[in-house]
């Protein structure tokens, strides 16, 4: 993986996913390893992000790298009309690895083509967010002891949730059964269903959250965003129908864990936080180890 860019989750194969998860487990045991003392990591956030930026910068710092960059394009020459291409060519002359979040779909692929150093996509518009996907896989592995043959339930906005699309794609290598729970207007898009079919796997669609609780090994919750609905009345109808609370968990499997890419609004009641099923905060913490693993693997020191 040395010098390889990570733009889309499909840029890596099954062996590479597993290698990253294995390296990440090593960093979880021993997070402070100054392996990148002589490296500069550029953290270019053209739109704001809390978790992704902080966890990338934490990862780089724990590895001993120095971090340059910005957290908002407002304070950069983008405001003067500089093109993404020019910004990336310039920064690739300064840094050894570029981590980039950008509001436009496909910006990360373009950056990786003009950059002379590897680019890690930290989210490009509604398109891809591969490091979120890897940390989701790491969390699944950690809670289930395996990635193989699991029942994975996705809840909420399956149409626009890029984390859902990437995770569905990546997990297709591990023989899961998918359980898809969403309102009619936010069903998983046909392109994602095509991946499932092409892998000869099965999926089941539901509209009731309660139906999947007893069968799921993993429940992956997402936030339903008001701005996704053209008719505000449609939003009002579904906004409270995919809310998970403590009482609903009485018949879940003992190994079941709840994941959520965060931020959460009201789709998981706070009374769930104290249950053994809640895993979303630990999942966010895992982002640091997975990003350490990626930086180290791409820099060629692991």
């Amino acid at each position, binding site marked *: 993986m040395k010098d390889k860019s990570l733009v889309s989750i499909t840029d890596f194969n099954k062996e590479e996913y597993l290698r990253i998860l294995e390296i990440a487990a090593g960093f979880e045991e021993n997070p402070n390893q100054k392996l990148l003392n002589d490296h500069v990591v550029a953290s270019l956030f053209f739109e704001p992000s809390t978790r992704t930026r902080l966890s990338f910068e934490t990862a780089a710092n724990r590895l001993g790298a120095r971090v340059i960059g910005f957290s908002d394009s407002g304070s950069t020459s983008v405001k003067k009309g500089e093109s993404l291409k020019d910004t990336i060519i310039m920064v690739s002359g300064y840094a050894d690895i570029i981590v980039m979040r950008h509001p436009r779909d496909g*910006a990360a*692929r373009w950056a990786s083509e003009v950059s002379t150093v590897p680019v890690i996509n930290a989210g490009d518009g509604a398109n891809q967010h591969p490091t979120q996907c890897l940390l989701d896989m790491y969390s699944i592995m950690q809670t289930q002891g395996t990635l193989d043959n699991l029942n994975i339930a996705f809840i909420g906005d399956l149409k626009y949730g890029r984390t859902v699309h990437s995770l569905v794609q990546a997990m297709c290598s591990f023989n899961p059964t998918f359980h898809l729970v969403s309102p009619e207007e936010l069903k998983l898009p046909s392109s994602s269903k095509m991946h499932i079919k092409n892998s000869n796997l099965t999926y089941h669609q539901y509209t009731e959250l309660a139906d999947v609780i007893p069968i799921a090994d993993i429940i992956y919750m997402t936030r339903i965003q008001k701005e996704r609905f053209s008719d505000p009345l449609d939003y009002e109808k579904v906004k409270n129908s995919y809310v998970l609370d403590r009482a609903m968990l009485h018949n879940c499997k003992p190994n079941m864990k709840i994941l959520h890419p965060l931020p959460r609004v009201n789709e998981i009641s706070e009374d769930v936080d104290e249950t053994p099923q809640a895993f979303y905060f630990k999942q966010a913490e895992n982002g640091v180890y997975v990003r350490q693993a990626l930086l180290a693997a791409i820099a060629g020191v692991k």
Partner: protein
Amino acid sequence: MKKEQRHLNVTAIENGTVIDHIPANNVFKVLHILNLENNKNQVLFGDNLDSKKYGKKGIIKVSNTYFDANEINKIALVAPTATFIEIKDFEVVTKKTVEVPDQIKSIVKCFNPNCITNVEFVPSHFTVVDKENMKLLCHYCEKITGRNNIVFA
């Protein structure tokens, strides 16, 4: 007979390419994709001509110009039925048909308005994932542009 021959003389070309069986009303798109708008040779074209095979068709004749397979396949999106007839000394030398290419670069716009190719100066690039139904997967934003959304750059 004599009259017919004179008619032929006007339209026949000595050396060059006849692009026949273009779907009616797509002649201008073909002219654009093959950049014939800027060709300095004689370019003759007709649209809505009678065709035994298709009812109506378009035709283009370009003097002293020949097209390689790459260029021919560029028009697959608008004229998959077209034939490229190469003429030398008024004689037909070869006939070439259009094949749908695996990759399409620069000629089509991505239909996703938030795609980087529509925001910055980035040449578009698609993989043809379904040749029959013309589904184009954007190399950048990974969205599919379908036949009905195809707009030429």
